[in-house]
Each structure stands twice: as structure tokens, then as C-alpha cells.
């Protein structure tokens, strides 16, 4: 009886092969739809610094200068395009920072996101020795701590050097020195860190 049963259940090798083949075909055909390219919405491709000169009363006066740092492919091999910053000596500027994602069309303004989640972000401004450029925060998040999207920048005497803009995500804003712009104890992760060559004349 057993052998009879076995015969009924056991398919021939040909049948087995046919089933495997059928299964394989089904499987390949259903997974054969091609993937779509990704829109990387969070990418920061462009950092724009706008230096608006202010007069003695703190009001805008004259034309703003715009400088940018552009890297189209983030971690990819394309070399970034970096503006040379030129500023006037002994001048006070309103410095605004804009972050853009220009890899998608239309471009996305990331600085709006940063502003919305101000408590989770803070910009830090660094300069190489000898560069007479001082930046102080001019904005606040919900907790009254700085974000750094809007700032005051003051130049001293003519000098040259490097100016570094760093955006930290989830920094420890209450750590010592952090709210006055000292990055040492800030922690968090770096979202942006770009350096510009600066000439003050």
C-alpha cells in the first residue's frame, strides 16, 4: 500500500524540474519592476551666506553680498564650488545663513526646517587666527537659546583667513559656553561644516 501511495505522491523528476522552473519564472517576473530614482529631500547641497551691511543705527544700508558653497552630490566625487568671501573692514553686517537642497527640482529650503526645529540645531562660526571677523547670534529658539540662522558679523582691520560654518544637530545647548557660540562642549552630530576663504579689505 505504501509503495502505491508513494507513486501517487512522488512526482517524476521531470515534473519537479517543471515546477521549479515555473516557480522561478513566476518569482522573477513579479519582482522585475524597475526601481525609481530617489529624491533625496534632506540633502544639503548649498550653503549661502548673505552679508548685509548695517549702518550705525542698525538698519540695512547698501547692497548685500552673497557667497555660496555648493556640492551637488554630497558624499559623491563631484568637487565642491566655493566662493571667495570679500568684506569691508570695520563694518557691521547682518549675516544670514541659508541652506538649500538643489538636487531636487524645485530646490528645497532646508533652513526653514532648521528654524522650525530650532531647539535641535545650532550654527557655530569659526575663524582662523588673524582673521578679524566676529559673529554673534541674533536669533532664538523656543527656549530662548540661539540657533544662528540670523547673526551680526563685525569686521575689524584688513586681514585674510578661513571662515568655518558648522551646523550641529541635537547639540547640548545648555553645556558651558555653547550659547555664546563656543563649539567645544556642544556635542551632537555635524550636519554641515564648510570653510570659506575670506579677505577683509
Amino acid at each position, binding site marked *: 500500500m*505504501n509503495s502505491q501511495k508513494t507513486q501517487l505522491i512522488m512526482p517524476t523528476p521531470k515534473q519537479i524540474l517543471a515546477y521549479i522552473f515555473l516557480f*522561478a519564472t513566476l518569482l522573477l517576473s513579479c519582482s522585475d519592476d524597475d526601481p525609481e530614482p*530617489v529624491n*533625496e529631500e534632506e540633502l544639503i547641497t548649498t550653503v549661502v551666506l548673505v552679508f548685509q551691511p548695517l549702518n550705525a543705527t542698525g538698519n540695512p544700508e547698501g547692497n548685500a553680498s552673497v557667497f555660496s558653497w555648493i556640492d551637488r552630490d554630497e558624499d*559623491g566625487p563631484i568637487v565642491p564650488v566655493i566662493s571667495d568671501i570679500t568684506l569691508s573692514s570695520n563694518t557691521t553686517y547682518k549675516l544670514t545663513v541659508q541652506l538649500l537642497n538643489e538636487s531636487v527640482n524645485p530646490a528645497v529650503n532646508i533652513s526653514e526646517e532648521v528654524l522650525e526645529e530650532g531647539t535641535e540645531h545650532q550654527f557655530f562660526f569659526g575663524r582662523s587666527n588673524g582673521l578679524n571677523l566676529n559673529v554673534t547670534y541674533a536669533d532664538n529658539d523656543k527656549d530662548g537659546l540661539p540657533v544662528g540662522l540670523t547673526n551680526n558679523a563685525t569686521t575689524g582691520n584688513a586681514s585674510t583667513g578661513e571662515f568655518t560654518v558648522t551646523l550641529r544637530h541635537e547639540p547640548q545647548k545648555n553645556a558651558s559656553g555653547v550659547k555664546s557660540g563656543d563649539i567645544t562642549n556642544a556635542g551632537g552630530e*555635524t550636519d554641515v561644516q564648510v570653510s570659506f576663504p575670506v579677505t577683509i579689505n
Partner: protein
Amino acid sequence: MKRLFLIFILILSSDLLPGQPCNKRIEGEILSDEGKFLPQATVKIVNTEQTVLTADDGSFIFDHLCQDRVQILVSYVGFSNITITLDLPIKRKINIILQRAQKVLDDVIVEGEQLRRGASQTSAILSREDLAGLHGKPLGESLKEIPGVNALQTGPAIFKPVIHGLHSQRIMVLNNGIRQEGQQWGVEHAPEIDPFIASEIEVVKGSETVRYGSDAIGGVIIVNPPALHPTEKIGGEFNVGLVSNNRMGVFSGMMEGGIKPWRHCSWRVQGSFKKGGDYHTPDYNLSNTGIEEYNFSAALGFEHDHHGGEIYISSFNTAIGILRAAHTGNNEDLQRSIVSERPWYIKDFTYDINNPRQNIRHYLVKVKAYEQIRNLGRLNIQYGGQFNQREEFDIRRGDNNTRPALSLGLFSNVVDVTLDHEKGHHSGSIGINGTLKSNKNDTQETGIVALIPDYNQLASGIFVFEKLKFNKWVLEAGGRYDYQHLLVKTFQNRTLLKPEFNFHYFSGNLGATYNWTPSWRIIVNAGYSTRPPHVSELYSEGLHHGTASIEEGLMLKEGVKITDHSHVKEEISKKIIGTLQHTKENLSLDFSLYYNDIDNYVYLRPYETRLTNRGNFPAFQYRQNNAVLTGSDVSLKYTFSEKITYKLKGSYLYAKDRDNDDVLPFIPPAQIENGVSFNVNSNRIKDLIISVNLPYTFKQIRAPKVVYPLDLDSETVQGKNFDFAPAPAGYLLVNASVSFKIPVKENTLTFSLSTENVFNEVYRNYMNRLRYYSDEIGRNFSLRLSYNFLQH
């Protein structure tokens, strides 16, 4: 049920039993060559003269054995006597088939034991007893008990097995007979397996590509559930584990039995749950290292006369937190972490798991059938369908935190057809394997370019291996041919590319075992194995936040995908491994030496620094170079008296990139472990064992040169391999444990209390990728309770 216990045990000289732990058993059935069970057959352990007669159903049991290796003599009127040698512990029921006397030949099939692997392979087993002391630990951590096996760690909960320096897609995990198909390409991807399903785990340290294909080039991890038994009563096991360091609770249960109307059928269900919070080092909390896991499996088996089958399903689900401070934005962040003694993010203990974290699911369906065909052998057919989903959540802005940064679904099908044959001194197996895989990224969900692309892979192989026994020799030879078709779907500047690859490759194996004397044995195995590069090695692209480095595949040139793949070569391993075994009543020794010469060894080498909007990053690319890995493993056990046992384990590995005359990254440092255990037996409690182990890990002296992240420049990355931090100093740990058994009616309740890192030593582990950020965990108490009511 009673029948199984009705065993006529005749202990002729029980006082010969030496040392401890005397808890090993051999269970089996004696069959005629026509498949009839033979009652009243004599089964004798040769060296102790311990003898039993088989029960009406041909079954026999030897219990409370102490030896690591025994010789068994089986005799039955009208049949030829046979002698077999077994390495203990042996958890599976063995079937011994006697040949009629007129057929002259005295041979044997020890099911599942000898046929499963080459007899001439070097392997090591974690037995049920070993595993009981490791309950609650992930698979990869448990395997570290075996000399020559290490783990590549990502924090305290993610362990990736490393066998003789090889890992990831070079190691195959056999999950209940099915090749595990998961996302093994990533260094922070641990095997998706619940160790509670296993009653034993075996590690084969030689290449097993002939049997299993290219993924077994570095070795095989065989996770074996116990065999299904059609018993009348329900049997089972419950385990509870409490772990102090991360306040973890682990619970597992298993039940099994027969089905009354169908006495050849049996079933088993099994499940486990674990939840733990943040681990801590002696000095601080490791924030966001919690884990939650729940697993389930069920099996249904049928076995009668010459055929049988099994259906098995399992589900594995885990969520693991990754140390918050290990997420780095750029090399300045990394530099700060390396220089700082403590992670920058330390919060109070919590069970919450936040980003970065991993969510992993793995489902398996297995269907297996076999038929014993007269004059031909045993035909096995099995199918395994698997779905593996891996989601990795990163630190992102705002609502994007709820979106995974990586979401991969791997659907795979494996079919194995084998014919095992056995005739006299000659046995072997012939078979075909087929694998069909489809890997898909859900990039609409992630919004991030995928780390590895989508792909379809079709692989098939055909193999044969034969074994010949004569006198004191066992000789073995095998060969295999494979074909792999790979279709990749990747993008270059938003344009879809669909490169195709065809690989044809061979593997071969020669082995010999020489049973010099009953207590000395030499095993030598030489293997030639081939492995085509994995998709991740061909097309990886992206930034790893844990190591602040950009990784690129073989098919990228300066970040751009190329179409010419003539430079992509198969990796070829030529490994020779020799083992000397000595087994006597009070001494067992296992000493192996191996030499593995690998051509076109694929690994990440640094090649440039790249300026991005977060500063400079080193870019690593998969390159193929000739490498050599050679080393030695040793284990020794000496029983001084019934009460005291001394154990020694050690391993050493030397690895080199021969083309560049350079050291290789992630090579385990030398280790040596001394242990002593005391066995105190009394009337009320059984097997009270107190043990102390002292594992010492040396400093990796062949670590890559150190380049701190801020010292990176285009020159430093172009030379030799480098590491961002020096190799940590060597360290000695002290581990201690107490365990005992209490009989509850016919069953057993086992207690164990163990402490790891008794002295709260502060140390870092070279093999932990998070050593840049934090120390290893501090003192850890584990309490384990196990209640066993198995019916067989």
C-alpha cells in the same frame, strides 16, 4: 512512552566512570538493513564494558556518560557486528543499521552525524549543556566559546561570527538545515537567528563550499533543533533568564509531542521573548543600547519506515538600539569621540530604544521530505522560503526620524536535492542546490540613495563527494560546480543601469582521517573554494555614520559606476587545516593548525579623502588583493579527579595582505583562556558545578597604523591600511558561575548563576566597532532557570 524508558541497562562496572560532567547520553535505534527495528540487540561501550539491550522498538539509551569519545559495539544474531566511534556529546538520536551476516560488510549510517559534514573536517560543538549556560545571549556571542571563533561586535548586542578571521558573506549559517539568507554583507548585521531553537550548534572551521556553495568559504555554523520524536506524553522545556547589566529578562518555552491517531507524526512549538534596556560600563550608561526580541517556531514531522518529512516555520523579530554617541556627522565628531574618555551622550537608564536603531524581521518556511530507496540510498528534497526585512533608522531632521534610512527586503528561495548513498566502506552524497533571491530597497520610504542596490540572483550548483573507510583511514574527496547569474539595478545620476554578471566557478576538497590509536586521531583537510563577489562588494556606495567613512564597491571608479567588469575576479581560497585529537578518560586535547591562502581577497582599502559639506571624509574602496590567514586553535581538558577539571582554550591568527605587504583590518587578537571547575555531588542536589574562567585577550600587535581623523590628508590614506584609533591594550577578565540541578519528580530543574567581568574591569575590545566611543560593559550577573520535562 513507557516503552522508551523500558531499557535494560546493565552496568557492569559503574565504578570506572571518571570525572565530570557525567551527563552525556547516547540515544539511538538499531535497524536491520531492511529498515526493521531490532529488539534485544546488544549495544556495548567497548572501553567501559557498559552494555544495554535494545527495547522492543529497537531503541537504546546510555546515560550519565563522562567520556568525550566512545567506541560502541553492536551485535545481533544473524547480523555482522559493527563498531563505531562517537564523539560526545551527541544530541541527536542515532540510527545504526546492521547488515545481514551473509553480506559480510560491517558498516553503518550514523544519521545526521557523519553524513552532514565531511568526516575529515575540523569542527566544534556547543552542546545543550553549553548552550544552557549561554541562554539569552545572541548567536554570535555564544559562538565565541569555541576557540578560533570570534565576533565582530557593534556595541553590546550585535555580534557577527568570525571564523578564522573570515566573516559576513564568507560564513554560512545553516538554520535547521536551510541556508540562512539575510543581509549578511553589513558589518553591523548579525545573523537573524534565535539560539533558543537549537539543542546544539556546530561550527565547521574548514571551507564547506563543496556541500553548501560559495557562502561557506570561511566555514559553516550549523544550528540544529532537536530531532522530532513522536512521544505519547507532551514534553518540553521552559527557560527564564535575568541579566543584571541591562536589566534584561529572557523567557523561552518549548513543547513537543506526538499526535495520537497518527503515531508516526510529531510536533513542536517554541517561542522566546527578550527585553533589555541600556547596558552600562563600570563608569557610565551606554545610552540607547536596548534590545527587544520575540521569536516563534513550529514544526510538524512524519517518519515511518523508509520515508519521512518535516514542515517548519519560524519568525524572528528584533529591535536593537545602537549607542547614540556612535553616530558621527564628520571626522571632527569622530576625533572628539576618540579623544574623549566618555561618550558625549550619556543619559539615565531606559528601556526605550531610539534612533539610531535596527528593526529586523526574518521569516522561514521549510518543507523537507526523504525517502530511503533500496539499493540506491536516501533521497532528500527540501525547500526553504525566506523573507528578511531590515530597517535601519538614523538620526535625521524632524519627522524623518520616523522613516528608516535603510529599508531592505530580501526574498529568497532555496531548493536542495541530495542523494546520500552508503555501501560497505564507501559512502557519499550527490546533490544539486538552487537559490533564487530578490533584494529590494524601499527608497520611496527612506528618501535616501540605497547603500546597496536592488538585485536578482539565480545560483545553482551541483556537487558530489565520496568517502572511503579502510583500516584506520577515512578518505574523502568532493567537487562542485556553480553558476551564478546576477542582475543589478542601480542608478548613475538618476539613470537606471542594469548590469548583469555571470559567474562559473569550481570548488574541490580532499580530506583524510587517520585513527592512529584508539585515543589518537589526525585529521587533515585541503580545500579549494571559489566565491564571486557579493553585490555589496560590487556596488556599495555611501557614508557609514558609525565610522565616518565613505565606502565604494569594485564597480565604482572615483565614485562613478563603470560598465567594464573584466577586472572583477572570483575570490579563491586554498585552505589546509590539520587537527590532532587525543581522547582518553581524563584528558582530551584538540590542536589544529591552518593555512589559508586567498587570491583576490575582497576587502575595503582606503584610497582618498573627499571634501563634502561636512568636511573631509576618507573614501574606502573594495579592492581585490592576495591575502594569507594562518593560525592555530587549541583546547585541552584535564580531569584531575572526579571533582576537579581544568580547561584551556587558545587561538592565534596571523593575517596579511601579500600584495601590499600590509596588515588586514578586523583580525581577532590572540586569546587564551584558563578555567577550572569543581563538581560537588550530594544526595539532594545533582551536578553542583562551580567554575571560574579567566579569558585573556592580547593586544592586537598587527593592527593597522593609526591615523587620527583630523590628521587625515590625501597622502595618509593612499598608503597602507589605517585605523582611526590604536588597538586597545590586552585585558584579563574573571568570570565565575555556579550551577546545579534539582530533580522534580522525573524531571529536572536547573539553576545557574554566573558573573561575567567579576572585577568590573574597564577595557575596550579590538573587535568591537564601537571601541572608538565607549568601554565594554561592566560586571554582569545572570540568573538562569531551566525546567526540563523532555520525554525522550
